[in-house]
């Protein structure tokens, strides 16, 4: 709180008496003269006083700090001011989002091999990212269009770009959430496929012959049984297998798959089931 002996920076600059109810005194201390000088140069003392008087005392400090920030930006860049900072940050954010998108694509390749979900290539999303790869095409990055006489269009372009930015961010968040779900599913699918391969090798080791391809489809049952103990399914829960993975539709009825097999393979498959079960118990 300033006294008559130590005027605030505002009253000192304006060379007037700093009273006890001076609106500037709490926010422009005497040891920061440059802060008020910048604000006064850009906005003017009367305009700042009007703005502060319209606000609650609780909000005034934040308002003064944001005004000081804007004034400093405007003085350091008389053409663009804060808008230049916004443009730079928008560009930086989009660059990071592009890198993040590419990184998630690369991560998806690890989970699924070479398969990539079609939603990653949604036409509403990719063109914008591809468009941003070209730095010279800055019209979508800067929030204004320097049209000169067409000032109304420039203002609309700024608001439109704001809306577009918000929409893009919402869309990207939604896409990233979908991608995360897809990545988790693909990881589980890859794990199931690897487990199938392992079971086939076990069967080959036990019996000395390659099992038919659809016999390997029984294995997800075993995998699920190990991972879902509460399910209470037997290792060869034929006919009761619940397929959580929409991609693998062939594993729905494993017992049903056994029946149409050639006779020699069908006869050999029957005595092998206990061995497979015992093998499962051992491993």
């Amino acid at each position: 709180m300033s006294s008559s002996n130590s005027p605030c920076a505002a009253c000192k600059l304006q060379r007037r008496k700093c009273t006890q109810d001076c609106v500037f005194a709490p926010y422009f201390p005497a040891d920061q003269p440059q802060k008020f000088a910048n604000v006064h140069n850009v906005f003017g003392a009367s305009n700042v006083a009007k703005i502060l008087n319209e606000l609650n005392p609780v909000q005034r400090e934040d308002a003064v700090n944001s005004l000081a920030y804007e004034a400093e930006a405007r003085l350091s860049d008389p053409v663009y001011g804060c808008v230049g900072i916004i443009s730079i940050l928008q560009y930086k954010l989009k660059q990071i989002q592009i890198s993040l998108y590419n990184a998630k694509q690369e991560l998806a390749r690890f989970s699924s091999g070479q398969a990539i979900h079609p939603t990653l290539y949604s036409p509403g999303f990719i063109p914008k990212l591809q468009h941003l790869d070209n730095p010279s095409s800055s019209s979508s990055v800067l929030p204004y269009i320097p049209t000169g006489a067409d000032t109304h269009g420039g203002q609309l372009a700024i608001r439109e770009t704001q809306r577009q930015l918000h929409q893009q961010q919402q869309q990207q968040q939604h896409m990233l959430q979908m991608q995360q779900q897809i990545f988790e599913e693909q990881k589980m699918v890859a794990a199931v496929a690897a487990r199938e391969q392992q079971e086939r090798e076990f069967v080959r080791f036990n019996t000395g012959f390659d099992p038919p391809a659809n016999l390997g489809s029984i294995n997800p049952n075993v995998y699920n049984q190990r991972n879902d103990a509460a399910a209470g399914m037997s290792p060869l829960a034929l006919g009761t297998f619940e397929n959580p993975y929409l991609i693998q539709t062939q594993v729905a009825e494993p017992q049903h798959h056994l029946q149409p097999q050639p006779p020699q393979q069908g006869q050999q498959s029957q005595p092998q089931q206990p061995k497979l079960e015992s093998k499962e118990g051992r491993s």
Partner: protein
Amino acid sequence: MSNSTRCAACKSLRRRCSKDCVLAPYFPPTNPQRFACVHKIFGASNTTKMLEQLPLHLRAVAVDCMSFEASSRVEDPVYGSVRIISQLQEQIIEAQSELVKTKGEIAFHNAQQQQQMQQLQMIHAIAQEGEDQPSWLSSSQQDLFPNINQQQLEDYNYSNTFCGFEF
């Protein structure tokens, strides 16, 4: 000059709009709200002073930016356009941390794959050596796994070692 040809600035300030009015090209009479915002926040004299310091070809851009800042401040008297800056900064920080996390996962998967490849190469090398070893050594291996041929032994080792890194 008649009243109908005055720019929005001179109309708002109720003054004569001269031919060399600095504000006239950027505040047409068709959009009085634009100047009203700029006048409320920056003031007409400050606006004129700032435009006079700029070259002609940059003034339109400057007015657009000032108009944007003024309208943001009118909508949000506390933070104005600074709110957009802080939101963008927060989003950048979040995106950066997510990018770092994703790159870490990629590095982990890369390392895992390399380890698996090295294990496979070792297995193949061992299998190759097994073929080249003297018969007394390979027969002792067969004694450990009776009724199993060498191909089955290699397949078992292959599957056990490869799949062992999956879990």
